[in-house]
């Protein structure tokens, strides 16, 4: 890791008002929702109201969109790489900066939510669900950060956000097309033709890959409850992180960087 790149990434974020507003909203929105629920439903006071680990992905999205592509657009990447620094170290530093920042924000959000719950109902202090939730947030933040770094290395400016949205949209449209095949196969309980069975299997595989790519998580709470998903989910997580970072390094290494966009 390169400390200067990490600090620079966080400083760039600080100078962007839109991102700061989005970050504030993302921290306050769950709190507002839980406050409303506590005021409305009496029994909710006894529950540890903490948001889902998924919010870590949103924090990573706010921190990580355009993290490399904006530097390419402004030409600052050329200045950075003029120093004795490899592309791989640059990419890894960016990944760490985004993942760490997103983890920190989501953990801060979690602690505030848990603290409010504990103040209102002290027995919740012994509830350890939030520890698993916190671990999942950290894992998810670093996983999503790697995916964002990959997208960011492909384009310039904020086009990576468009790429992410486009991929998700294409996946949803594809699933809608394949749905009739899947439903008929499910209704027949595996009694379809070989072609149908192959299509079902293929769709499941693609769907799983899609889910793993966009939601790189290790379900800590489920594993602690006895789930057998630890091996598969760990491999999937490692795969997403290493493949995304490798591809980002590979693509960036093959680009010529000018000192500014014409």
């Amino acid at each position: 890791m390169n400390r200067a790149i990490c600090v620079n990434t966080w400083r760039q974020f600080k100078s962007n008002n839109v991102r700061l507003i989005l970050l504030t909203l993302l921290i306050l929105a769950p709190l507002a929702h839980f406050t409303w629920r506590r005021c409305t439903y009496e029994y909710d006071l006894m529950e540890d109201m903490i948001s889902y680990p998924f919010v870590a992905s949103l924090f990573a999205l706010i921190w990580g969109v355009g993290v490399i592509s904006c530097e390419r657009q402004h030409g600052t990447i050329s200045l950075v790489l003029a120093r004795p620094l490899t592309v791989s170290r640059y990419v890894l530093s960016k990944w760490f900066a985004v993942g760490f920042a997103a983890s920190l924000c989501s953990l801060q959000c979690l602690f505030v939510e848990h603290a409010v719950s504990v103040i209102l109902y002290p027995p919740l202090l012994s509830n350890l669900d939030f520890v698993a939730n916190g671990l999942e947030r950290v894992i998810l933040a670093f996983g999503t950060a790697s995916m964002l770094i990959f997208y960011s290395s492909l384009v310039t400016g904020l086009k990576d956000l468009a790429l992410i949205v486009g991929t998700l949209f294409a996946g949803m449209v594809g699933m809608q097309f394949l749905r009739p095949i899947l439903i008929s196969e499910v209704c027949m309980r595996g009694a379809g033709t070989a072609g149908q069975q192959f299509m079902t299997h293929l769709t499941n595989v693609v769907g799983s890959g899609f889910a793993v790519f966009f939601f790189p998580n290790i379900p800590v709470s489920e594993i602690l409850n006895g789930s057998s998903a630890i091996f598969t989910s760990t491999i999937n997580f490692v795969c997403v992180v290493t493949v995304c970072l490798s591809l980002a390094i590979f693509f960036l290494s093959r680009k010529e960087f000018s000192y500014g966009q014409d």
Partner: protein
Amino acid sequence: MARTKYKGTRKQPLLLYLVAGCSFMLASFLCVDKEFGLNITYDLSSPFRKQPPIKWRSRTQAISEAKLTRKPLLYAVLYKGDEFAYRLESDGLCQPEIYNYVNENFIPVKVPVSVQPVTDESLGKEFKGFTHQVNMDYQQSGLYVVPYRLLDASGRDIASTANLIELGATDPENVNPYGDSYGQRFEMGRSSGAFDSLGAHKPPLLVRYRDKEDLLEYLYLAKTWHTLKPTRGLVKWQPSSILNEKTSVRAQVKPRMLFLLADAGYDSDYFRLSSLHSKKLAAIINSKTRPVLVEYHPYEPALDKDIEYLKKQYGVNTLPAVILLDTKDGKPVVQRGNIYEGSLIDFIESGRNKLATDSEP
């Protein structure tokens, strides 16, 4: 001039590429073959998992022991990589209350499953007929109970719904003979879609484990349910001695109606629930006839020696059967096969024309 380790901006991280390539291939393989991932997780975690101190028997050994000790068999079907199987084995069955209760009241048999689809052959020679007995049509880990007297019975017969009412687990006023089975309370998440028809015909089983209390409750029910007598419903049964009463007495009172039922088995259980628990039908039977119940024991034929002649006398081969005695011409009227509330009411109403006690039109 001092040399630096720096070898250029475009130096490639080969180790990262290697890890990425390997993990991608492994992840792709796991994505294509999910069973492999689950199996390898199970195998790798085996040394670290707790093993319940239960005295497992082989199936052959358990069957012969059950006949001697008259204890029910408890099959623990554990699929490799199934979350429920993990939790059941390493958490639920490892609780001292649970394994003591199991060792004391059951004859436990472990059925480890690693190959899909499950067949008798894949389980081994000693499991002949097992998949049919527990209806293992699709992947499902669970605990299955087979009472000692129903060792040879099919899963359909073992799922004796009638006992539930006696146990207080089902509301007798609102009984659905198709839906209420002993195991249904424990089949969470399986009561919809294509599996509905299977749910009611499965032997007492546990397919979800939530906590120790839940498991203990199941084991208590599993130990108790088959020892209770099947329900006799709302009908006021007369003593069987009236079957031998004299003709002169018969003319004075209501005609006799003979019910031949089995003490176990789906058909008889269905009849008990659908007909004998019907208030309307019970009122008709009680007001117009003198009902007599004779129970057979299809899985313990030695107990039926004294009453076997009744079947031959009235030409009954399958149970349940209802026989209207005391007709005008002296020939009893028999209803066999699929008997339910409506058909029995029709049978009684149509049979009244033939009854010796009815006045001439």
